[in-house]
Structures are given as structure tokens and as C-alpha cells.
């Protein structure tokens, strides 16, 4: 079974703090993704990575950066957290562009 784990289920941070969200997958997948999910807006792609050290912007990359130093790990970074970044963050991985995406349990981030 594919396992995608996220470092925290719940996180509370203050405005202006630097926030790291980490995601690890154990299936040797090439592709990893970060989404945010907000009520009424569905899932929106922030960034994705198709290989180590490679990244591409999704639909809403502003205010975020990512890091992929190892194949199994994909980090989402909020350089200076703001209240409008309060959201559910979901990580996913897949073995190819049209292959099934496997999602982690999500991190619910609250920025005060």
C-alpha cells in the first residue's frame, strides 16, 4: 500500500512566522504535489515536483516555496505566514502524469 505521510495534522502559527510542512512518500514515486483546500474552492494546486530538485508552479504559488532534496520528501515553505494562508494542506504523490495520485491525511494550518 502506498503511504503518504505529513509531518503534522494540526499546526498553529503566528503571522510572519516561517512555516515548514513536510511530506514523505514510501513508493519511490517521481511526482509529488502540494494542494490547499478551502471551503467552496475545492483543491487547488500550489506546486508540484516531477523529480528531485525540480519544481513547477501550480495555480496558486504566491506566498509559497517548495524544496525536494530527496525523492521521497517534498516540503512546502511559507516564508512569512499570513492569515489568508489558513487552510488544509494536502500532499500527494504519483508515479506518472496520468497515474493515480495518493494523498496524505492533510495538515490543518491556522495562522493567527
Amino acid at each position, binding site marked *: 500500500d502506498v503511504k*503518504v505521510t505529513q509531518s503534522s495534522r494540526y499546526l498553529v502559527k503566528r503571522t510572519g512566522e516561517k512555516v515548514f510542512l513536510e511530506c514523505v512518500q514510501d513508493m519511490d514515486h517521481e*511526482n509529488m*504535489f502540494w494542494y490547499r483546500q478551502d471551503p*467552496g*474552492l*475545492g*483543491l*487547488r*494546486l500550489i506546486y*508540484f515536483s*516531477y523529480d528531485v530538485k525540480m519544481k*513547477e508552479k*501550480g*495555480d496558486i504559488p504566491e506566498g509559497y516555496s517548495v524544496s525536494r532534496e530527496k525523492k521521497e520528501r517534498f516540503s512546502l515553505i511559507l516564508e512569512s505566514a499570513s492569515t489568508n494562508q489558513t487552510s488544509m494542506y*494536502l*500532499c*500527494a504523490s504519483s508515479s506518472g*502524469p*496520468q497515474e*493515480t*495520485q*495518493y*494523498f*496524505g*491525511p*492533510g495538515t*490543518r494550518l491556522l495562522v493567527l
Partner: protein
Amino acid sequence: LAKTTQPISMDSYEGQEVNITCSHNNIATNDYITWYQQFPSQGPRFIIQGYKTKVTNEVASLFIPADRKSSTLSLPRVSLSDTAVYYCLVDRSSYKLIFGSGTRLLVRP
């Protein structure tokens, strides 16, 4: 970019068949149609994927007409545990994915 449209919500009763239709008028030749299920406080889970005609697995069936501008997810004999949000997704070969707004299915006893 291909956009998907699906009903915001649906109600059903246990034991009934549920059909959720998704519209994707601008689907491209290389696009696949994928459906995910999401329970509260969990990440989405893959249900089924198809390109054309009909696909069936142990959970659901997916019907895609010849023009591929829509698709219908069919859940046979739903139970209370099928209450969830169902997302229609058009996969693009360039990795960019488009999730629909989701259909909130409520199954009543």
C-alpha cells in the same frame, strides 16, 4: 484549461444507485477522467479512472460517451459510509491537474 462542472450536492438513500455527472466540455485528446472520494478530515482517495466508454471496478462504474464532454460516476447500492465529497478530475499529461468543485453526497438511512 479543461474545467469540470458537477452538482454541488446530492441526496440518496441506502441501497439506491447513485449517478453523479460531470461536465468537461474542453477535454483534450490526451486527458483521462478520474474520480476521487473524500471523507471529512482526510485526503482524497482514488475511485476510478477512464478514457472512453465504460470502466468498472469493485467500487464503481464510470460511463463516458463518445464525445467525452461528460462522464457519469455510478455507485451501486450506496450505504451510509458512501457519504462523502466526490471529485471529478481531468488529468492532463503535463502534470497540471484540475479538480472540480466536488459533489457532496449524503446517503440517508
